[in-house]
């Protein structure tokens, strides 16, 4: 009954050959599991929405679509930075890679600030969680915000990895990037289901 030893991918190739898992397999367990857990939240949201579509739609009208859209672009941009950072790390341009991670983290912080402003504005406008739509809104975006916060910690770990000349393992950078992209992916779906759909 030996322990499962995980093959760490060979890190030094720049081109990605087919069939290679980017990053750490343990992180993919997390990502796939998280997608399933979030999916259950989305489906339960839809079930409650279909029981009372009119009031959900009315409440959706009170969301700030401008901030929602800007936040989507912010998060997409941060994902681009993280993806570029992986390319730089593979190419051995570690300083550049660190710069990209910082840029991505900055976008993450901006996302949280905008989200906080959006929450504060909604609460002061009287949209508390006594409304069914808004209770979903606060819980789903709140849990997503926790994921963003964890993501910032993950990016911090990636920066430390890249700063240390003795380390700089590309699979670590890929692992962090995988997590960050998942945060982005979840937000895109949240944006569609909470802000845009009718």
């Amino acid at each position, binding site marked *: 009954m030996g322990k499962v030893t995980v093959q760490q991918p060979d890190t030094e190739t720049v081109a990605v050959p087919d069939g290679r898992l980017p990053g750490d397999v343990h992180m993919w367990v997390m990502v796939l599991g998280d997608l399933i857990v979030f999916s259950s939240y989305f489906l339960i949201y839809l079930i409650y929405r279909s029981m009372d579509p009119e009031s959900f739609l*009315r409440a959706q009208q009170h969301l700030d679509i401008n901030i929602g859209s800007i936040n989507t672009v912010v998060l997409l941009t941060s994902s681009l930075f993280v993806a570029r950072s992986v390319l730089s790390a593979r190419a051995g341009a570690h300083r550049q890679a660190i710069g990209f991670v910082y840029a991505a983290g900055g976008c993450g912080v901006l996302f949280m600030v905008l989200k906080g402003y959006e929450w504060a504005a909604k609460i002061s406008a009287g949209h508390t969680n006594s409304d069914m739509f808004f209770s979903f809104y606060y819980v789903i975006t709140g849990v997503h915000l926790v994921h963003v916060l964890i993501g910032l910690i993950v990016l911090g770990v990636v920066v430390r990895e890249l700063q240390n000349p003795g380390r700089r393992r590309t699979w670590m950078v890929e692992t962090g990037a995988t997590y960050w992209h998942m945060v982005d992916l979840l937000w895109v779906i949240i944006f569609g289901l909470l802000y845009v759909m009718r």
Partner: protein
Amino acid sequence: MAATTGTTEKTETTARTLGWAWVVLVVITVASWRLAPAHFTDTVVASTGVTALVLVLTYIKARVILRYFMEVRSSPRWLRIGTEVWLIVLLGAVFGIYLA
């Protein structure tokens, strides 16, 4: 696992492909911005057409993020198929519940 020669070139992630992926994602986001219920001051009505369009756009965006940013398109088969199935089942179920 073994890739046929030639496909390796195609699935290589470059700064250029990432940039294009980002452009596609942002364009779709701006397009969805036009569709949102919050744009209308008078009462909006439910619209199956808009919802279907939104779900299709969400599908495209999620797929772009998965395949290009997360590099799923060059990953093992189980992951490519798994994420694809997950996305279709989720959005299909969303639409099914919406219609029900």
